[in-house]
């Protein structure tokens, strides 16, 4: 089952002033995996995510994606390795149409002809066909999340990093999103940052738990949910 390691964090630390948001984290991701990162608010998972995607330059340590050292690289350089990234707050082109949003992603990697086809496919794959010419800024929150997911997918990345893809969604939307993620996982290795346990149960079985900037435990969902420490950490803050 385990192939090669495609993403690795080595002794990764991120300090803000005196705050150690991420503290000497060692982390490895294997090919074709779908890994969830969980943890209560302030556990450091989002900061960790931003270090992976180039939005933060880590204070110490390194991130290696398929033998490339990326710590300190610009986000676009990381994206160019074939990494698709979705941020926590929906980051979309609000003033443009759904179709243009997707096209901009597809066109980055492909010739005009192929980009057109890919845009079409993505719109269908994510069931965005009906709202293709809508201006993204006018859409509902959930739909904007999907548009962003569409942009990630349209680039045909081999590694996908998602930060809270289901945040702020209704129950039905969450289910659809879970489906989409499983679909994407067929062609890409994934990391999903999330704190909705139910959602995680829907998509993944291997979970990394963050707590106070460090990895608390890394195991299957079943083990995690039975773990005392995890429960303690979570119950204090958030009960799902």
């Amino acid at each position, binding site marked *: 089952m385990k192939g090669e390691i495609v993403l690795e964090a080595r002794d990764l630390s991120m300090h803000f002033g005196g705050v150690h948001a991420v503290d000497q984290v060692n982390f490895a991701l294997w090919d074709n995996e779908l890994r969830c990162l969980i943890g209560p608010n302030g556990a450091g998972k989002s900061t960790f995510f931003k270090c992976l*995607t180039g*939005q933060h330059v880590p204070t110490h340590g390194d991130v290696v994606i398929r033998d490339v050292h990326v710590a300190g690289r*610009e*986000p*676009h*350089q990381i*994206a*160019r390795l074939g990494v698709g*990234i*979705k*941020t926590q707050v929906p*980051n*979309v*082109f*609000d*003033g*443009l*149409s759904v*179709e*243009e949003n997707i*096209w*901009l*992603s597809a*066109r*980055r*990697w492909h010739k*005009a002809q192929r980009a057109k086809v890919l845009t079409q496919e993505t719109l269908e794959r994510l069931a965005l066909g009906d709202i293709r*010419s809508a201006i993204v800024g006018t859409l509902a929150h959930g739909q904007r999340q999907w548009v*962003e997911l569409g*942009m990630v997918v349209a*680039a045909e990345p081999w590694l996908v990093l998602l930060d809270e893809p289901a945040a702020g969604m209704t129950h039905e939307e969450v289910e659809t999103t879970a489906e989409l993620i499983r679909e994407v996982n067929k062609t890409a290795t994934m990391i999903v940052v999330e704190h909705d346990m139910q959602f995680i149960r829907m998509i993944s079985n291997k979970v990394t738990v963050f707590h106070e900037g460090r990895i608390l435990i890394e195991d299957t969902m079943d083990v995690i949910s039975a773990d005392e420490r995890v429960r303690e950490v979570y119950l204090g803050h958030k009960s799902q």
Partner: protein
Amino acid sequence: MTWNRENKWRAGLVVLGVIFLFAAPNVFQLFTIINMTTAIAFAILALSLGLIWGYGGILCFGQTAFFGLGAYAYTVAAINFGGSTWAILVAILVAMLVAAVLGYFVFYGRVSDVYLAVITLTATLILYSLMRRTSGPEYKIGKSLLGGFNGITSPPLNMPWDTSQVLFPEHVFYVAMAALILAYILCSWLVQTQFGRVSVAIRENELRAELLGYDIRFYKMALFTVGGGIAAVAGVVFCNGVGRVTPDVFNLYNTALTIIWVIVGGRGTLIGPVLGAILLFYLTSSLGTQAVLNNNLVLGAILILFVLLVPKGIVPSFTEWWDNRRALRTSRRKEVRMRRRRSRLAEANGEAGDER
């Protein structure tokens, strides 16, 4: 895609421009034609800012830097070469080079927003301060003295590669108008290419564009450079219209005015800045012929009323009004049709025609 309708408009505008190019000299008096050159130069300058600000989101408070550099580079080169053909090219290249260097400096340092505005403004004011003090024989480039505050007399354009055929000011109008039309076509084309659309995407959301793998620093720098080149063309036209280039092109008034043209015309459109520049040029120019009220007073009042009444700028407001009118007309037509059908139905059913 929604390009079709916009392109129809754009094509229409280009046709209008070409008609104007040939018709104007037959309609207007000589001095009107000569003076139009200056207005057209400003229109091209506004277009360049409309491109980089309206489409690329780059708030450049120093677009006149490239305009002025274009004018100076043209003048100095034309004096040295003894002809204008290569000088135009030099002007464009110099301005683009400076834009590229400044662009590299700011965009690769991730300066944006008002901070970018201040850097570009400051760069322009530096040019202003330095150029003003270049009077004296020690300040010369090749054969051309820089002339300080009084500036340099700009050699007139000549026919390409034929320095014996010098254009008269009234003929420069053709060149100016053609330059405006070509610049407009270039910009219209550019914003539809992948490059242009990515630039718009960057304006919309920098982080997202980066996460898609676009190097936004490069895109911004490239767009900025193109804008600098177009502004240089405007500068060449300008110094031919005025017959002179002085450091005043770099002063605060002119650089702020460029921003004002774009806002008045409407950001996010290409024809808007062009109209904004021409409109304000003729407004201030005609104010200067009256002696009843202080010009600043009148112009200030007009601008304030404008910002309150036409908040989005001329062109976007016009488009909105046009769309609304059309939408209203179609919906009214639909309503009428529906009402007819309903009343027909009602008649058929033998009931009284009820409005609701």
